[in-house]
């Protein structure tokens, strides 16, 4: 547009310069600070880069609402959001892009609509569905990916996808992954440069699952209110209402479980079963508050902003800190450190992980242990050696053929030092383990 072509219909004051709105941000985008990399060029080029970079973020929940608002007000203009959930009333205490009238609608769509209306000039493209619906070609269009997912499976999936996409010849195929998570007053923000630095899978043991209560405790010797609830959930429902599919969002179902658990507790003299506890155990509810979400989401977006603009050093570069742990229940505490890449990481490493096993334990026991092993967390593992199939979850014919192996001792099936390949339908990678028999 020519400078002279604006005679009488000049826009109102303030709107004349499109950057007036971004005056505060521009102080940082145009002025060089003492910690900025020497080679970084601030100003126009960086403003352009920020405006044109496509950013993907997945998980429009408590963290997601914050992340979307923060990205839009950081100067990103082309944001894509993926979430498969719909809005529930218990989201409203922290997911501030949603109102009571939105209950039941798609989180991605409502969040995109709201922020696009509030922050002019930003384009937000929602997709209501699973991240697994999308392929490499889709993920390749983004400059970086931000995750605020509540499921560990989804995190591991996107991590493996981004690591798998890296082509050594083409640096553009390396998509930085910024991930946040919270639980009550605690949380973490981390930056992964796929294949270059420690990935989500390398860090899996930072988030060990709670050990499951043995089935025999639930069935015969309950001691805690939670044992009675789990009993109602796992055993009583199966026995008495096998034909109904349990829907943990159905109040009638929760009430039924609650009353079952309560009468079992009374029978065993156990106190403390409540409706809220029943709901918490059955739905695996993680406490969540607005303030922790705000802190962790902002920490993630601050890294995204620094990464996209070079306005200050960001977390995540090799041999730099890449992980910030946050805890706010006693004072304010952060621990920022470098989590090391693991050579035996099934996703980004080249070596099999050593597995110490008792030669007398059975294949079934090994199978069960994969669910609880912090570094594996595989619920439906299929196991083979280089030469034979030890156990297949599917198809049914193979399952049936390999089932007799489950009761056999490991020493009858594999040799000391032999390599196992384990796969699980939830993950696209093969987990490699090297057997080391305990003496």
């Amino acid at each position, binding site marked *: 547009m020519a400078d002279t072509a604006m005679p009488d219909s000049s826009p109102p004051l303030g709107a004349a310069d499109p950057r007036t709105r971004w005056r505060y941000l521009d102080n940082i985008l145009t002025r060089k600070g003492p910690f900025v990399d020497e080679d970084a060029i601030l100003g126009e080029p960086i403003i352009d880069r920020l405006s044109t970079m496509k950013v993907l973020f997945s998980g429009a929940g408590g963290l997601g609402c914050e992340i979307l608002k923060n990205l839009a007000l950081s100067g990103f203009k082309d944001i894509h959001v993926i979430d498969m959930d719909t809005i529930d009333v*218990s989201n409203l205490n922290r997911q501030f892009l949603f109102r009571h009238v939105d209950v039941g609608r798609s989180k991605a769509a409502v969040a995109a609509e709201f922020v696009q209306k509030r922050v002019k000039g930003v384009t937000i493209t929602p997709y209501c569905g699973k991240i697994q619906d999308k392929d490499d070609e889709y993920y390749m269009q983004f400059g970086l990916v931000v995750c605020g997912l509540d499921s560990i499976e989804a995190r591991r999936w996107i991590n493996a996808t981004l690591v798998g996409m890296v082509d050594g010849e083409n640096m553009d195929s390396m998509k930085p992954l910024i991930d946040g998570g919270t639980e009550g007053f605690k949380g973490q923000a981390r930056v992964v440069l796929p294949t270059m630095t420690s990935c989500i899978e390398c860090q899996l043991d930072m988030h060990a699952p709670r050990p499951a209560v043995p089935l025999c405790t639930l069935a015969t010797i309950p001691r805690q209110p939670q044992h009675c609830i789990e009993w109602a959930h796992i055993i009583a429902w199966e026995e008495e209402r096998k034909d109904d599919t349990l829907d943990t969002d159905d109040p009638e179902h929760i009430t039924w479980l609650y009353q079952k658990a309560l009468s079992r507790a009374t029978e065993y003299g156990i106190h403390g079963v409540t409706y809220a506890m029943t709901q918490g155990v059955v739905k695996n509810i993680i406490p969540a508050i607005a303030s922790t979400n705000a802190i962790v989401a902002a920490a993630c977006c601050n890294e995204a902003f620094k990464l996209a603009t070079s306005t200050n050093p960001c977390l995540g570069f090799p041999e730099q800190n890449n992980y910030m742990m946050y805890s706010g229940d006693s004072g304010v505490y952060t621990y920022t450190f470098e989590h090391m890449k693991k050579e035996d990481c099934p996703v980004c490493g080249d070596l099999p992980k050593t597995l110490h096993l008792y030669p007398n334990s059975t294949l079934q026991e090994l199978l069960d242990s994969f669910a609880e092993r912090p570094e594996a967390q595989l619920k439906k593992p299929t196991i083979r050696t280089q030469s034979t199939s030890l156990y297949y979850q599917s198809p049914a014919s193979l399952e049936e053929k390999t089932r007799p192996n489950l009761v056999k001792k490991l020493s009858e099936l594999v040799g000391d030092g032999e390599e196992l390949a384990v796969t699980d339908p939830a993950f696209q990678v093969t987990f490699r383990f090297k057997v080391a028999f305990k003496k």
Partner: protein
Amino acid sequence: MSQSTPPPLHQGPTAKEKKYDRQLRLWAASGQAALEDAHVLLINSGPGVVGVETLKNLVLPGVGHFTILDSAVVREEDLGVNFFLQEESVGAERAAETCKYLQELNPDVEGHSISEPVEEFIARPDTLTPYSLIIVVAPVVPDVLSKISAHGTATQTPVFYVHNVGFYIHFSLQLPPAFTIVDIHPEPEALVDLRLYKPWKELLVNAKKWTWRMENMSDHQHGHIPYVFLLLHYLMEWERTHDGKPPRTYKEKTEFRELIRSGIRTSNPEGGEENFDEAIGAVLKSLNEPTLSSTVKEVFNSPECEDLTEDSPNFWLIAHAVSQFHTKHQTLPLPGAIPDMKAVSADYAFLQGLYKTKAREEADEVLHSVRALEKSLERPNPILAAEVDAFCKQAAHIRLIRGRPIPVISPNEGVAWGERAKAAVNALTDESSLILLHIAFLTFDAFYAQRAAEGKARVPGDGADVEDDERLLTGLAQDIGTNLLTQAERELDEEDADSVKTRLGNICAELTRAGGAELHNIAALGGGLVAQEVIKAITRQYVPIDNTCLFDGVRSLSSVLLL
């Protein structure tokens, strides 16, 4: 078992319980009630984002009332950094507009706005009385901050003073002079005290009974002896060969674990016993001398605990009674909770009953002392027994925070570091501490105050000559540093002095670079931190910072300083 389900005892959660479910799991109905009773005042200034983001995190969980005091009119540049404004807001009062869009988040919250310069607002008498907590956002002139801080001291009202500039966050919390907390929510394991070093008679008698002729038990029985009884059994055995003394040192405890290990049956189908494993695992954490933590000692030794009056808060009366209990028994009242352990249901319930009964007895003893104190002090309203119970359960974790006035810098008088000078000097050379950022923010305030006194109030970097401001700010900051060394009667060697100078210079440069701008991300992070601390101060649950918190968004780390 009967097939008929019992009549519904519970009609399901209320609408409010559903909406707040995820937070009620953290601070319960009592915390929620306190939050709903609160009226938070935000005194906003500058770009005004961190304060609004703080309120967002208080409106969502359902704070009762909030009021925004802000004299600014919405400008175009507000739209690029503040989420709670719209295009149509430009030209309108920022207090009213931000209030409107915050209010939308939660119909249960009542928002108010006042558009008036803060100097006029606080000049009126009683103007601050309606508020249970005050948040002041910098920049403000020292005089205003001093007045609000004095009001906080006089009325026991918590006051926050918040800076949010560029990549940096800095806030101080002024709590009442004796801020007490019972409910700090420690990890559940921390609430367990098995009292193995001082077992009471009934516990010992039962331990003997339950381990009598263990060798003759069936595998099932042997493998289901609750581990508390196992530990007591082996303790008695140990003491017989150790002059009646329990294992104390690490070495002794290791030997003691081997003693327990020698009792494991491996001939059973499992090839081991879980209850014995649990006993071995519990040795290091459960076998400890009953010593008072320094935080509890601080409570017992404070004058408020020793010199009770008719108006003493309940906390001090109960603390006094618990302290009497401790003097008499050399132990705190038993919390009564036991961890889950391998055992059959009835045995576990029996053991649980032993601990609960003892805890009940001891809480009753404390309650008895409380009643006696109430009588002698002629207090009209008795403390609820439930409050005494809750105190006894958490007696090992009670906290006292001595709130201190916000450090206010005036252009002429500098900073009085007082007794904190030495600790502050030690932090200067510690690269993980953010003390230099604190000094930079004190300087930031001095810079603003100087210009405000000349009628040209502005913050560093917000003008034509950024480099000039940077030089000025660095110079002022170095003066504050030098003055700190003088107050602490300390000197730094040349190398340390140079390093401190360079680091301080860099921080001042980064601060000036922002020119008073807020980055939305950092404002959102600051809003999260401040709101979290507000919630702790209001609910008296969890432990608030004592007393200044900093976040460095360049390096992504935080630091808390006691100043």
